[in-house]
């Protein structure tokens, strides 16, 4: 009797786990299906065949199709933005946490409030200004706009990590006569390193994936991958296997970085929002 009940419970638990797995897999299915399709011959993609002999021809075709300059654009814009956001965001967060601002909280909330602003509310002036300054369709233009748009997130995250650093450590360094710069590089930076790296990765993801500014401010020369994807879709929308191959290539970097940095994202967001 007791044995039966235990078997029953175990079976129930097994079914429950299988159900959870099934639900998660079906949520993930579009990505999985995209990856699978990217290895199909076009004739196996439309109409879709379950069984197929895998091929790399789509990747070869895609990489030879003129996507490379756009990958380069994406990579350069994203990396430069990431560096600027950290180079400007970390000092700003430092001065909010350790500086002697009159109202550090208002400074912080000012940064936060700018993220509320819908991008459409700035796009027209930015477009006109860029046209005037010949920044339209340039990588530098995109770096400027993305840096401004992502610094608030960087400040938000980095602040939460700096707040975790025990102040006693800095006090001790001060008493030892270490200079401010020295204690920043020797104490604060090493302690906040993981947090700062995660922040950088998140900025990478946001910029790599960004669509609105990219589609409005670039045309050919500086257009990053998302813009290229959208136009490829209209031109070659019938080649699903190739579309899938491009898609797989372009979602891979943010996916990997996202899996690395998501814990820090949650921590940073909750710290900023709940504990103030």
């Amino acid at each position, binding site marked *: 009797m007791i044995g039966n009940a235990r078997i029953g419970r175990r079976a129930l638990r097994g079914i429950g786990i299988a159900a959870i797995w099934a639900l998660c897999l079906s949520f993930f299915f579009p990505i999985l299906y*995209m990856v699978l399709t990217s290895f199909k011959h076009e004739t196996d993609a439309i109409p879709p065949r379950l069984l197929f002999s895998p091929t790399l021809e789509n990747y070869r075709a895609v990489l030879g199709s003129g996507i490379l300059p756009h990958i380069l654009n994406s990579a350069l814009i994203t990396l430069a933005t990431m560096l600027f956001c950290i180079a400007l965001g970390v*000092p700003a967060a430092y001065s909010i946490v350790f500086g002697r*601002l009159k109202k550090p909280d208002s400074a912080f909330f000012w940064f936060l409030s700018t993220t509320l602003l*819908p991008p459409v509310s700035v796009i027209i002036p930015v*477009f006109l200004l860029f046209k005037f300054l010949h920044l339209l369709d340039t990588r530098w233009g995109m770096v400027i706009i993305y840096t401004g748009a992502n*610094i608030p997130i960087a400040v938000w995250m980095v602040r939460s990590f700096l707040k975790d650093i025990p102040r006693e450590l800095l006090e001790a360094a001060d008493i030892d006569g270490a200079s401010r710069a020295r204690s920043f590089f020797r104490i604060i930076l090493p302690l906040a390193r993981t947090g700062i790296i995660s922040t950088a990765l998140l900025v990478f993801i946001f910029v790599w994936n960004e*669509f609105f500014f990219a589609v409005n401010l670039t045309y050919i020369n500086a257009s990053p991958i998302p813009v290229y994807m959208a136009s490829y879709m209209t031109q070659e929308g019938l080649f699903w296997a190739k579309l899938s191959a491009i898609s797989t290539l372009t979602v891979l970097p943010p996916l990997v970085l996202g899996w690395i940095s998501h814990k820090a994202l949650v*921590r940073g967001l909750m710290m900023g929002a709940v504990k103030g």
Partner: protein
Amino acid sequence: MKAFERIAAVPKANALILPAAAIVALVTQVPLVVTLVLSVVKWIVVRPDLGINFIGLSNYFQIFTSREFYSVVLNTIALTFVSIACCTILGIAFAHMLNRRFPGVNLARTIMIAPFFVMDAVAGIVWKTLMLHPSFGINGLVASWLGVAPVDFLGQHPLLTVVMLVVWQWTPFFVLILLAGFESISEELLDSARVDGASAFRTLFQIKIPAIAAHIEVAVMLGLIFILKTFGVIYVTTAGGPGISSTNLPYIVYRTGFYRWDVGRAAAMAIVTVILTLVTITALFGFVRRKTREAEA
């Protein structure tokens, strides 16, 4: 604390905030002011012969007397609130399911959060072709298995399609935050529920969900801010159509500004978008705060 501030804080550190603040102001606040100015002029960029004329609040009058604009506002509200509601419910459900130990739980969590990191352009393409295409997508496949006609999602239910995509992309974000919430609930709280003999159902609704109220609040707030900005998935899948049936505020500003080049009208629409965003967020924030206080009292 006090001693520390005296010793370790130097006025110099204040200047470190300036470069960041300057560039943020340059790309957000300054253009916002310019948008405000543009919203009271008539300026069609592709018609330089007409010039730039001050027309007061005419742009606003035109917006608020056009039926088109009201349906766009309604689309935006429907898209945002239905998506947020679905994300919250699915987010709680998935986070609760994944907040336990079972074989491969880490892998299950990993694949669950993946859609959040997929760019709009790709999400749009994959759903429009591989998933929802009536003949060759999974949609057509399932319909033929069931022996029914496939649903023409993009043509017949364009707004629903956009909602589906947004929910697919943003539920993982809710799961991420709410899972952290469930994990932070103390064992004592759960033990006391167990001692009281509360059912799993009651424990979830009367103990666990109230305990993660702060996490739900953060997820909803951030979700709201970002979902109000939805643009990429619309651009790639329905292009706002058919007609304006899946056009939201960001998309109509884009259409008006960069297709008709009616800069003044687009600016006025953008200002309305800002006001609507702020009103929604303030109202929701107030509502959540009140609820939290009631729950605490």
